[in-house]
């Protein structure tokens, strides 16, 4: 090796040593520090001369110190190393006694027959602090997620669950360990494709997609919820998107609604039955008329047949009448049965006259009995409405009954039933000449169990309002001008295309 070159190399070595951000330290076979750079002095908190010539153990915490001589000796004797060429995370000890984490990589070489080791040390204190902060932050986030009541998680573009909070795990009845695909929980009647499409859409742009009212099948239980999807880039450098899912659990809400609906339907049914009970006399009359006529015709027929000279036409006419009256009775029974039965609602397109006439027909004898005059008034060109016949009849029946009840003391009781078209559909109004509605009861009139009658249950108008609103309509009332009774009206949205000419 020639001298000038060695000098240059030594200078270059010195520059490299000083330029390194990591601490570099050279020791001999027994651990004496032969060389170290300024970074080494800085990392360990010494002045460089304090380190040079001293044993490397001064830079180690107590537990490493005891072992170090042993390590060096064993390597010398056996050539077995646990660190050379590998690099390990170990601990160093600063001059002030503080132990800190550091990354140590060791190399070795022979110089003039002497074995030297080079150690490169990177102080991990900051990184460890950073990691700890991250861990704490993650724990905090995790805590937040888990304490959130909204089932929340993170899925990939295929709907595979990456992270789930406790609420989501509990919704899906999984413990978060198994591979879970959101789509596999959707029940058969829910569009699984719609989830896929929404995931695709969400992955394309960081939008919020809402999938309303998905049905899930979890452990044989049906659960329902709205799914909110929002994507975000998972990595700055590629297109990988994570999708945050939030699920608004509506199972309980839907069950409560179903229960409420069932109660309302029961109430409506009970109300219909009580309305029918109130109409018993009228109904008996409705059935008695045709039955009585049939009995009369039949008796007359028998008497006539016993005579010889009965004209065949006369008998034919009698039989025809019997048939017609039987139909008439059957018709009454049919109307009654549909009103009394609790069958599920079926909607059909009906005209105002069908609704009003059918109902008045059922109620006719009651009105006659009470000597109430009824006027009908239809506008021309009324829209058809798509309604449940029985329920709307029930509404009208109720309004008629209320109108009659309001006029019990009225010498000239009269009801006007009118139908007119409105922009939003068909309006049917029942106008009475009764006592009107006082301001004090107007506000509570359609509340369930509120009644102004001595023998009322207070469910009639509440049921009416429920039925009309279920049809997308509206029910309201007002006092007539001059204190002449009140008018109850209800609006039904018009059926698509079609008027009652």
């Amino acid at each position, binding site marked *: 090796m020639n001298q000038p070159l060695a000098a240059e190399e030594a200078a270059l070595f010195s520059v490299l040593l000083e330029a390194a951000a990591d601490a570099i330290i050279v020791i001999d076979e027994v651990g004496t520090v032969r060389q170290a750079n300024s970074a080494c002095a800085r990392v360990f908190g010494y002045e460089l001369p304090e380190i040079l010539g001293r044993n490397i153990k001064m830079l180690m915490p107590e537990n490493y110190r005891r072992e170090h001589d042993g390590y060096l000796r064993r390597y010398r004797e056996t050539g077995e190393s646990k660190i050379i060429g590998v690099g390990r995370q170990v601990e160093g000890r600063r001059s002030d006694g503080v132990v800190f984490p550091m990354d140590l990589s060791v190399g070795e070489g022979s110089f003039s027959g002497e074995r030297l080791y080079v150690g490169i040390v990177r102080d991990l204190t900051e990184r460890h602090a950073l990691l700890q902060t991250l861990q704490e932050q993650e724990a905090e986030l995790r805590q937040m997620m888990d304490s959130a009541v909204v089932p929340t998680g993170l899925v990939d573009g295929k709907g595979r669950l990456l992270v789930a909070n406790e609420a989501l795990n509990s919704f899906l009845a999984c413990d978060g360990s198994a591979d879970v695909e959101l789509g596999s929980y959707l029940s058969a009647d829910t569009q699984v494709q719609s989830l896929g499409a929404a995931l695709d859409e969400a992955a394309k742009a960081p939008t919020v997609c809402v999938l309303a009212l998905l049905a899930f099948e979890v452990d044989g239980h049906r659960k329902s919820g709205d799914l909110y999807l929002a994507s975000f880039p998972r990595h700055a450098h590629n297109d990988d998107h994570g999708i945050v899912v939030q699920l608004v659990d509506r199972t309980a809400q839907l069950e409560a609604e179903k229960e409420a609906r069932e109660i309302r339907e029961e109430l409506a049914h009970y109300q219909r039955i009580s309305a029918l009970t109130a109409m018993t*006399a009228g109904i008996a009359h409705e059935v008695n008329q045709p039955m009585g006529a049939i009995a009369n015709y039949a008796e007359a027929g028998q008497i*006539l047949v016993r005579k010889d000279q009965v004209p065949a036409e006369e008998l034919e006419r009698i039989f025809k009448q019997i048939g017609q*009256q039987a139909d008439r009775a059957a018709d009454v029974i049919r109307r009654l049965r549909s009103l009394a039965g609790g069958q599920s609602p079926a909607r059909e397109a009906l005209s105002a006259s069908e609704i009003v006439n059918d109902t008045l027909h059922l109620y006719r004898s009651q009105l006659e009995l009470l000597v109430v005059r009824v006027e009908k008034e239809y506008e021309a060109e009324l829209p058809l409405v798509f309604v449940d016949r029985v329920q709307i009849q029930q509404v009208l029946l109720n309004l008629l009954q209320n109108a009659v009840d309001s006029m019990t003391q009225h010498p000239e009781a009269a009801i006007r039933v009118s139908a007119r078209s409105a922009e939003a559909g068909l309006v049917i109004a029942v106008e009475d000449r009764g006592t009107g509605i006082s301001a004090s009861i107007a506000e509570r009139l359609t509340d369930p169990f509120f009644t102004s009658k001595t023998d009322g249950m207070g469910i009639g108008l509440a049921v009416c309002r429920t039925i009309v609103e279920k049809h997308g309509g509206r029910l309201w009332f007002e006092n007539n001008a001059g204190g002449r009774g009140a008018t109850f009206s209800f609006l039904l949205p018009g059926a698509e295309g079609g008027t009652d000419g």
Partner: protein
Amino acid sequence: MAEQLTTVHVVDDDDAFRDSLEVLCGSVDLVTRSFADAGAFLEDYSDEWQGCIVLDIRMPGMSGLELQQVLLERGCAMPVVFITGHGDIEMAVTAMKSGAQDFLTKPFRQQDLLDRIHAALKVADRQRASELQRHEVESRFERLTPREREVFDLVVQGCANKVVSNRLDISQRTVELHRSQVMQKMEADSLADLVRLSLRLEG
């Protein structure tokens, strides 16, 4: 007119029921005259009409009960059979108190209705017969002179000729003459007969 005596007047607003009643009555050779409401009946009504009335107790407009009242005021004596529905018992009671012949609650047996119609017609017949007799007796009574009527009144009260002669201050002989005129004009065979006729006059 014999036909009029057995006429059944039907007032019922139900077209089919009214028609069936006509057919039923017709099957047993009863003549009917029917009306859809009380107004139509009153429009046609004549006090010459004979027979009975089958009346629906409840009808739109004037009810059966109201029609019964109007007819009573007009002196119509035709017996009324009311047909009532379920729950009309109160009205039926009112009708009976106002002198209705009978009432039937729907549904009823057809033979019951016919029986009651026949009974009502029998009542009408009897009424008519006694009415005729009364008319006859009245017209006989009309023929008596004022003095003969005075004698008639006293005789049917059971006064002997002598008492009559004293009361009226006429001779017994004159009393006997008047008395024989009375017996002749009243077409009475005996004193008992005369007393019976006098009762009809009061009836």
